[in-house]
């Protein structure tokens, strides 16, 4: 089970309806949230991906459960790639890749659970930005924390929150969008 904010039931609908409904649903969602689209039309997978790539939404992946295809989309948000990073301590993807076997660090993936589920750095723990304030206490303060997201923006906000609470935290830039090191999925 992948946790999502919104679910669209397009089961039993033939093409073009799964995309017509997805488009309508996405329009009313806030930027950055994840939509799970349940469909039975096999062609919906290639089409949803092609459509999302074209309009700029993030296609996370598809899980097949019996006859049902569950597609995961994250609504585009312009601010992610453009905004400046404020947290001063940063590290590059490559530098983090060299530290993966270091027991004295914690890698915290602050993307949405669905993004994390399809692909993340091995050993990274999932703690979505939106839940950071409530769940911050789950992190031990005796280890250095590396926060990672897709492009470095959400992790910048997370890093600021963590630093304000006294954690030793470093932002990974740019993050998963250009990550070439090992990954794992938790599907």
């Amino acid at each position, binding site marked *: 089970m992948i946790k999502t904010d919104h679910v669209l039931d397009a089961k039993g609908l*033939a*093409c*073009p*309806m799964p*995309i*017509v409904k997805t*488009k309508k649903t996405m329009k009313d969602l806030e930027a950055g949230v994840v939509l799970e689209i349940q469909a039975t039309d*096999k*062609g919906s997978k*290639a*089409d949803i991906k*092609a*459509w999302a790539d*074209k309009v700029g939404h993030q296609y996370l992946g598809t899980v097949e459960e019996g006859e049902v295809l569950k597609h995961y989309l994250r609504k585009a948000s312009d601010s992610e790639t453009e905004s400046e990073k404020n947290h001063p301590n940063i590290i590059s993807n490559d530098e983090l890749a060299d530290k993966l076997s270091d027991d004295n660090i914690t890698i915290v993936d602050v993307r949405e659970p669905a993004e994390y589920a399809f692909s993340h750095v091995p050993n990274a723990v999932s703690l979505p930005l939106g839940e950071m304030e409530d769940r911050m206490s789950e992190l031990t303060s005796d280890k250095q924390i590396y926060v990672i997201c897709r492009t470095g923006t959400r992790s910048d906000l997370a890093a600021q929150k963590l630093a304000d609470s006294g954690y030793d935290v470093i932002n990974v830039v740019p993050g998963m969008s250009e990550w070439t090191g090992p990954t794992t999925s938790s599907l």
Partner: protein
Amino acid sequence: MDLKQTQASEVASKVINKQDLFILDVRNEEAYGDWKIEGESITSMNVPYFDLIDGVEDLLPELPKDKEILVVCAKEGSSIFVGEELVEAGVENVSYLSGGMKAWSEYLEPVKVGDLPGGALYQFVRIGKGCLSYMIESNGEAAVVDASRMIENYTTFTENKGLTIKATMDTHLHADHISGGKALADQVNGTYYLPEEDAGEVTFPFTALKENNKMVIGEVTIEPIYSPGHTIGSTSLMINDAYLLTGDILFVESIGRPDLAGKAEDWVLDLRTTLYNRYKEMAGELTVLPAHFSKVAELGDTGVVSAKLEELYEKNDGLNVEEEAEFRRMVTENLPPQPNAYQEIRETNMGKITPNEETRREMEIGPNRCAVN
């Protein structure tokens, strides 16, 4: 005006008769790039339906005013959706392809190749996928060669003509389409022939298609000729010393590829021997009938794909490579992508897996890609 419906058979007849048709293909760009309806008289344009959900206004100036417009998608739902938008916007002469590219992929056009004693030879042109199958009929008996999965095409044909199918045969274990040979033979209580060398992993009973084991259909003799290269078992069929069914070894504009079973290096020499020795010794006036075509331009005036053997030795590049090393490069390097789901298709044809109808269709989507160029 209402949105009209066009059948795959009508599109096939336009392609064969070179009648103008404008196609608006609303599938995604990747699907269109991979495979589309083609023909000398066909113009097509790709705009995915998901770009047209909010309206077709931007598209209108790009559509021809004086041509029939056919909207095409994968199945038909999206083409109806876009077609209705066009009709509403006042566009005339719009129809959608009934059953979409699935129906196009599955449509077979039977065309007569020529007469045989007591009957005739027919080619079944699977125009959307580039596959060719054959029926030999004589004195009420028939044999089907390289049958497609849609076996009702052959049974309808034989019922109309009052024929009984005695045998079905595959020239090799196919990797690009699911064979209907076994299913058709079972349905009509006929014999299914397959080359033994290709059948090592086949899980059902069959009769070996073997050189020197001639078969007789009415007054017509079918003579198997061992001609390996595309697969180790590839066997050609000589029909009454007049027609040579070459399977996937020799096509009109190209030659077969040896790599679809993962044995390119091993089979290159077999392919060369077949093409440069075995076939070369045969009579030049034989009519070559392949199991595939790659371009619609290969279809003759009546839709038949064929050529004289001597003509091919003049014009087909694959038969005119003097150096063996150069030949090896040609058939093992820079090959086109392998056909969609070719491993699963081979396993289905061996009886190792039995996917459902929907999955079989999906597996066959796309071009055949059995030739080297």
